[in-house]
């Protein structure tokens, strides 16, 4: 399975025919997927994410959200349909921090630059900048085992940030941290999104997290998943935790919850 990513077609991320001015970072067109064992997970899914857009993906457990992200990143090959995106520099944040235990925080954050053959001095500098962005600059020499769950997640974010990708895929990154840490990591993501202006797809099971982070919430159905709704979340960035208590926000969250209930 190691080389799946290399076989997938890569193209300039613009759609011919539709408006060429939009900066599409990810275009998923009529993608369906069935695993070799016969499990059908995606049915005719289409999704376009532009630069500066933050899409939250929410849906029943096991419906195929992770599979969709993997197909987008080229880690899994769809059975039919088309994916268009730049595959050489995608930020992918997994549910587990997946830090290499034998590397220091600094070494972990340098990893992708190293894989792209960035010279040592330069990647050191890049890693330091990324660590500073997530507030881990004093922990660069620590090994992952010495970090708390929240700090591991920050290190994982820094690792993905180091090459400044234009497309970020998050697969339930904060599902296993406590509520307070999660809120702070959400602030962190908002801050990074505001300053880096990447395109993001963020899978989550939390309705409030989805509405808080995203500019669009995409609701998926039971397996095999279709897209049920695509809801605009119009609040300006940067957002603050207080947003949770505003009526407009609560209304949006209720709308998503109802759609999810019908899924």
């Amino acid at each position, binding site marked *: 399975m190691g080389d799946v990513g290399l076989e997938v077609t890569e193209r300039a991320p613009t759609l011919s025919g539709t408006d060429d001015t939009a900066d599409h970072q990810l275009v998923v067109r009529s993608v369906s997927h069935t695993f070799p064992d016969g499990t059908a997970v995606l049915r005719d899914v289409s999704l376009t994410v532009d630069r500066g857009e933050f899409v939250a993906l929410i849906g029943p457990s096991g419906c195929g959200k992770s599979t969709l992200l993997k197909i987008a990143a080229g880690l899994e090959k769809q059975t039919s349909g088309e994916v268009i995106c730049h595959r050489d520099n995608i930020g992918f944040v997994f549910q587990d921090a997946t830090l290499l235990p034998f590397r220091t925080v600094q070494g972990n954050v340098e990893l992708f630059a190293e894989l792209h053959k960035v010279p040592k001095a330069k990647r050191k500098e890049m890693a330091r900048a990324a660590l500073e962005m997530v507030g881990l600059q004093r922990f660069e020499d620590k090994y992952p085992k010495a970090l708390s769950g929240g*700090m591991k997640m920050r290190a994982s974010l820094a690792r993905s940030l180091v090459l400044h990708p234009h497309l970020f895929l998050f697969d339930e990154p904060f599902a296993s941290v406590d509520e307070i840490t999660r809120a702070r990591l959400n602030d962190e993501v908002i801050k990074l999104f505001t300053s880096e202006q990447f395109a993001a797809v963020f899978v989550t099971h939390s309705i409030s997290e989805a509405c808080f982070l995203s500019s669009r919430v995409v609701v998926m159905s039971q397996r095999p998943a279709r897209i049920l709704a695509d809801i605009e979340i119009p609040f300006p960035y940067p957002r603050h935790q207080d947003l949770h208590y505003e009526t407009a926000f609560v209304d949006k969250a209720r709308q998503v919850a109802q759609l999810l209930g019908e899924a």
Partner: protein
Amino acid sequence: MALATWHSSDPLQESGDLQEEALAQPAPPRRARSAHRFAKATLGPLAILAVIVGIWELVSYVVLDPQRRFLLPPLQTIFHQAFFIHSNLSVLLSALGVTTEVAMAGLGLSIIIGMLIAIAMSEFKSMERGLYPYLVVLQTIPILALVPLVGFWLGFGFTARIVVCVLISLFPIIASTLFGLQSATRAYHELFDLHHASRFTKLVKLKLPMALPSTFNGFRISAGLSVIGEIVGGYFFQQGKPDIGVLLDQFTAQLNGTMLFGAIFIASLLGVAVFWTFGGISSLVVGNWKE
């Protein structure tokens, strides 16, 4: 408080930062407490040692009559004869040197062969499928039963001794390295796939380092086995420079109980030293990061 700079407006968040930092930097160990723990840990074994020495001396002086005392000589006689008489000591030390040399040569060879086999098995499914049944066989058959055959084929010298060491110490290295190489989960592999890393890059930057703790465990087990293999080989083959195995045989034939026990003590010390050394190397290499 580097972390707090961004969140300084919110006291709750700031305390969260403090908590995280406290987690990251555990309190320094208390010297007094660790001394106490050390005493607790050593007291039990020391008591058992005293009991064993007591029984030993009792059997030697009281149970055995003087003509049969060579079966279990008093401890101070053993120590005096074996370790404080220069000619005796140098016989033991020279045998110790031979045994160490052969056992470590065998272990080195075992490490090279074992790791190559484990890497091949982890990289190529067909290799794993093909070799696995033989590994099970290697683990199940009593390898010491092969010792005569090894001598029969290769003669009774240095080469044969090394081959015995390799045979007996190979399996733990293959098994532990293979287990370690396969310990990187799918997500780790995907991390490298995302950036189109080659298989070789993944092997060097992911699988091998991930395997280290487990591999070193295997080294430690195999080092002990290699010493056993060397002594058995020497005992059986009886040729070349005398090692501990040869001495064991000689002293038994001469009914020389004191020197027999001297050789046994030396062999035991070697086993313990090898085990500790490899444990030490392991904590030097992976102690920093191992969970």
